[in-house]
């Protein structure tokens, strides 16, 4: 079977997701300007430990091999280790995303001792100034300190490379080589992903997203580094520039990907926390399994999608019209070009979208602005 026909199969959906993100809390010690879930404060409706374990039981039954745990800052949850250990005990590998604030020497040793655990440290600049402008004062030092602790604990030697996860912006795109060198220096692996206009990113996107020239720069850099750098397949809209980047080159939303949010709502992907892309809740009768297999939204997303306004463009097979979330949160039609279409097809449309018509994220858990509150707590709370 050729790659193309495999992708054709995947578009009809899998029996269970292969890339399931589970954001376990909206609480976060940071307040990144591009946070795709507008995190900050815990939601009182968040899943209890028991409810979370029942979800993990279901994922085990569905043979979900691994999950990506995120937030918010997942380590804020007091049952973080309990849930991770429960997942691993049920044969579900865990990769979790963290800003590193709570990885002290002790926790680094504990994490190193766990089988089938992978860690992804978020970092958006190779210097404090670039990083902290997006992620908040002190956040660069927290991430570096966490990586130092993981190195000292021997994480890489025992569990393989942890990941340094970078959201590529206008301001850090010139640092890609430095990010790679930083990852190499820890024996870690670099992961770079696309900035989405989701969550607080709805507001930040216009100032942060790469320019057209920078998009080509990203494409060339990724082509040069091949499969050594992870991307979460997030740059397939750049494939219109030439040969395809490694990966499946398709939007996986509701087909191979989905998101469970902290209160148990299931969305088509981590970048579309909005009612229009909410398929159901793990708290509904039938649980996650029923949402994945039978929800109207997911069944609809598995139908062939129209190329719409892109139908006459020769690059559609290469870029597939880009990212659904990016279109949605910039107010563009879902069957038209990506807002960052490298052919410039969305430039006119973007200029005419009224900001009043751009959808707003469904929920906002951002912390209230306080003139006295310190953003960064000490590690090891």
């Amino acid at each position, binding site marked *: *079977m050729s790659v193309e026909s*495999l992708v054709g199969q995947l578009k009809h959906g*899998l*029996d269970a997701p292969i890339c399931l993100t589970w954001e376990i809390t909206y609480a976060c010690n940071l307040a990144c300007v591009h946070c795709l879930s507008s995190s900050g404060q815990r939601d009182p409706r968040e899943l209890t430990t028991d409810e979370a374990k029942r979800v993990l039981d279901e994922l085990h039954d569905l*043979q979900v*091999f*691994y999950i990506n745990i995120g937030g918010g800052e997942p380590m804020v949850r007091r049952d973080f280790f309990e849930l991770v250990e429960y997942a691993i005990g049920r044969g579900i*590998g865990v990769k979790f995303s963290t800003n590193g604030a709570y990885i002290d020497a002790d926790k680094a040793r504990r994490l190193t001792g766990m089988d*089938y655990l992978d860690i992804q440290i978020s970092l958006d600049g190779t210097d404090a100034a670039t990083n902290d402008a997006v992620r908040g004062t002190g956040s660069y030092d927290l991430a570096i300190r966490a990586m130092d602790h993981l190195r000292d604990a021997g994480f890489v030697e025992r569990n*393989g490379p942890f990941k340094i996860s970078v959201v590529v912006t206008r301001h850090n795109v010139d640092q890609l080589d430095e990010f790679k060198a930083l990852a190499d220096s820890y024996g870690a692996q670099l992961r770079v992903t696309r900035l989405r206009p989701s969550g607080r990113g709805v507001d930040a996107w216009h100032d942060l997203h790469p320019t057209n020239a920078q998009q080509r720069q990203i494409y060339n850099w990724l082509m040069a580094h091949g499969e050594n750098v992870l991307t979460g397949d997030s740059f397939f809209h750049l494939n219109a520039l030439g040969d395809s980047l490694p990966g499946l080159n398709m939007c996986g939303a509701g087909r191979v990907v989905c998101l469970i949010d902290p209160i148990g709502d299931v969305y088509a992907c981590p970048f579309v926390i909005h009612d229009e892309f909410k398929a159901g809740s793990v708290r509904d009768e039938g649980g996650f399994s029923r949402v994945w297999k039978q929800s109207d939204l997911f069944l609809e997303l598995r139908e062939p999608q129209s190329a719409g306004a892109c139908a006459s463009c020769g690059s559609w097979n290469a870029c597939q019209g880009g990212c659904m979330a990016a279109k949605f949160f910039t107010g563009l039609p879902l069957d038209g070009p990506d807002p960052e279409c490298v052919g410039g097809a969305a430039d006119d449309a973007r200029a005419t979208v009224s900001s009043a018509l751009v959808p707003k994220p469904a929920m906002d858990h951002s912390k209230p602005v306080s003139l006295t509150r310190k953003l960064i707590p000490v590690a090891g709370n």
Partner: protein
Amino acid sequence: MTRPGGQALLDQALELHPQVALRPEPFGALAYHYGNRRLVFMKHVDVVAVAKQLADHPSLAATLEACDIAPTRWSSFATAFASLKSSEIVRER
């Protein structure tokens, strides 16, 4: 018996790596290696059937025979299993 280059795998005794789990899917199966965290698509149900039986037979060729795979397809199976071996989904035993 010796075979032309690339087909030598047919004579090897193979098995699914013990850290690999298979999940049935309409196109075949997903194979996940818990050790190296690789996710591999097994793109044909026959490949899945053969992979599951590898450990029960003395060689890949014997497994293909036991699974009633027509000899004309053996060379493509040798290629498929060479790829699965390189990603450590299957290994020599």
